[in-house]
């Protein structure tokens, strides 16, 4: 072991060039497909475009019309309510299921697979199934009444003040498995010594979850919230399939409002204004996440 191998000089890129080159496609897509498109949407929202884009600028007129529309406000309120219910429900149930599974059950794989099964369904299919289940004349209400409980009422699907809750219910059903998987993964990552220490200290199990484990899973809560939020914002096919935005437009969501105005109402300008407001709202909610992402990365 005395001779040395003379290193051969190879042609290569300067330091840092390779990652930069690898990022070119992503950078182009981000620039063009995300930001240029958002810019385009904004530009269109300043025009009186009907069915097709045109460039006759009319200032903020579309925004005035947008915010004068009670339907738009309903849609915005619904998004808030839906997001809270959907994210809260998924998180709570998903966490609970993950805890139950993590208690060391046999046939864990079976339960896990069952809980994740709805994830494989599209939102459209989810909407159709739940429309059946929740229809007062066909589904659960009818079935329970058939058992002799004549007074039983579960008619949220057709109640203007409750329809959005059914949308959240179907959404939770579909996505709870993702939350469960996220939390299960988080729980698996917790140092078993924590549990030993808590046992030695005689802390009841539920307290350990509440006071020790939950704070440790902060990152998981964070990630799942962001993922669910992105789904909530985008999940308008579910509303279309489940309630069609009804009764009336009581369960409308901004994405559906936008789509309907662009596609069927010849209101591209108004729809674009709605889309832009929607994206701004999202950006306001997400910006703190981006900030934290970056800061954490820098630490």
């Amino acid at each position, binding site marked *: 072991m005395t001779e*040395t191998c*003379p290193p051969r000089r190879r042609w290569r890129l300067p330091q840092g060039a390779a990652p930069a080159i690898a990022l070119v496609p992503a950078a182009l897509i981000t620039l063009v497909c995300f930001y240029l498109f958002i810019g385009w949407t904004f530009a269109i929202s300043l025009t009186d475009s009907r069915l097709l884009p045109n460039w006759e600028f009319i200032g903020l007129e579309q925004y005035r019309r947008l915010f004068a529309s009670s339907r738009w406000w309903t849609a915005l309120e619904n998004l808030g309510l839906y997001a809270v219910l959907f994210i809260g429900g998924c998180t709570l149930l998903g966490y609970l299921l993950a805890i139950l599974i993590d208690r060391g059950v046999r046939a864990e794989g079976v339960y896990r697979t069952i809980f994740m099964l709805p994830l494989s369904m599209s939102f459209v299919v989810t909407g159709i199934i739940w429309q059946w289940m929740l229809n007062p004349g066909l589904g659960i209400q009818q079935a329970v009444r058939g058992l002799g409980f004549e007074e039983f009422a579960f008619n949220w699907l057709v109640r203007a003040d409750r329809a959005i809750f059914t949308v959240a219910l179907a959404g939770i059903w579909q996505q709870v498995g993702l939350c469960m998987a996220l939390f299960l993964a988080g729980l698996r990552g917790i140092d078993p010594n924590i549990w030993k220490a808590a046992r030695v200290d005689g802390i009841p199990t539920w307290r350990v979850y509440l006071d020790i484990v939950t704070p440790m899973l902060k990152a998981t809560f964070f990630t799942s919230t962001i993922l669910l939020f992105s789904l909530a914002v985008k999940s308008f096919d579910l509303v279309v399939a489940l309630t069609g935005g009804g009764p009336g437009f009581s369960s409308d969501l901004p994405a559906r409002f936008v789509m309907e105005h662009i596609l069927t109402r010849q209101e591209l300008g108004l729809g674009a204004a709605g889309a832009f407001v929607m994206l701004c709202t999202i950006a306001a909610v997400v910006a703190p996440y981006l900030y934290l992402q970056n800061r954490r990365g820098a630490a």
Partner: protein
Amino acid sequence: MQRVRLEAVRKSYGPTTVLEEISLDIEPGEFLVLLGPSGCGKSTLLNIVAGLEDASGGRLLFGDRDVTRLPPDERDIAMVFQSYALYPTMTVRKNIGFGLKMRGEPAALVEERVREVAALLQIGHLLDRRPSQLSGGQQQRVAIGRALVRRPSVFLLDEPLSNLDAKLRADMRVELKRLHAESRRTTLYVTHDQVEAMTLATRIVVLEKGRIQQCDRPEVVYARPANRFVASFVGAPTMNFVEGRLEAAGDHAALRAGDGLIPLPGLAPAPGLKVGEPIVLGFRPEHVATASAGETGTVPGRVLMSEPTGPDLYVLFGLAGQTITARLPPGTDLPPQAAVPLRLDGAAASLFRPADGQRLN
């Protein structure tokens, strides 16, 4: 066998300077240890030598070759990481051979060299396992094997033993020393463990705050630390320090500390210093001895606490208003609070300037 020369190598991240103008000559075949506390810049320096980080200024020469701008794999080096950094998805065989494969060596040669190294490190039976199936010590051997197989002209080791338990660490130390003795490759070794530094190094570079504090043979660093930092960092238990003023006491010097006078037999009365000058006296625990009552050149101490370690007995004394440690032969009977006359070996004492901690004698 490669000479490594650092010329005024600097490193800063924005306004933070990590390394200030480091210049160093490493002789061919030398085993140079970079020693220092965490954050002193030693790992950064090693990374710069490896080419994993760019220096902000200065030059780096391997022999006559300026390698300052070369990527790591063109520098003809190999590196062992503290975490071993074994590729988790590759078998031991592939881990060791990966560098050669990347270099484009033919598969047969790779295989042969891997076997050779595995035999040398006695890990031949582990070649088809994955890192996760190995013990800590075995992983360490694989990491070293991965470096050896490349037959580099310069060997870089970044705290390679700190993840091992005490017994294994001692074994591996011997092993490393043997390997170096056989291969005589220029080696740069980063550690914060002064025992490793003392046992392995041909020369030690003590780093602190991005500066070289001292660069010398281990025994010199130990016996004649260049400043108070080196003195306190090297040696365990650490060196005793007593502040005071220099005085002459007959044929030898003494230290006036508080209301006590500490005679330093063996140290010239004024070793190039003025009497009355404020100094910090440093002496190692083994340079304190008990004396019998009435002997001259002693200072009275009071026993505070005893710590028998087996081969030695460490005793804490109150002395001239300060606390010092003495290393005494085991079995010395010293009840607590007993007053004992102590003799310091002035010949082995170090004197430091209080203002900047530089050695004076």
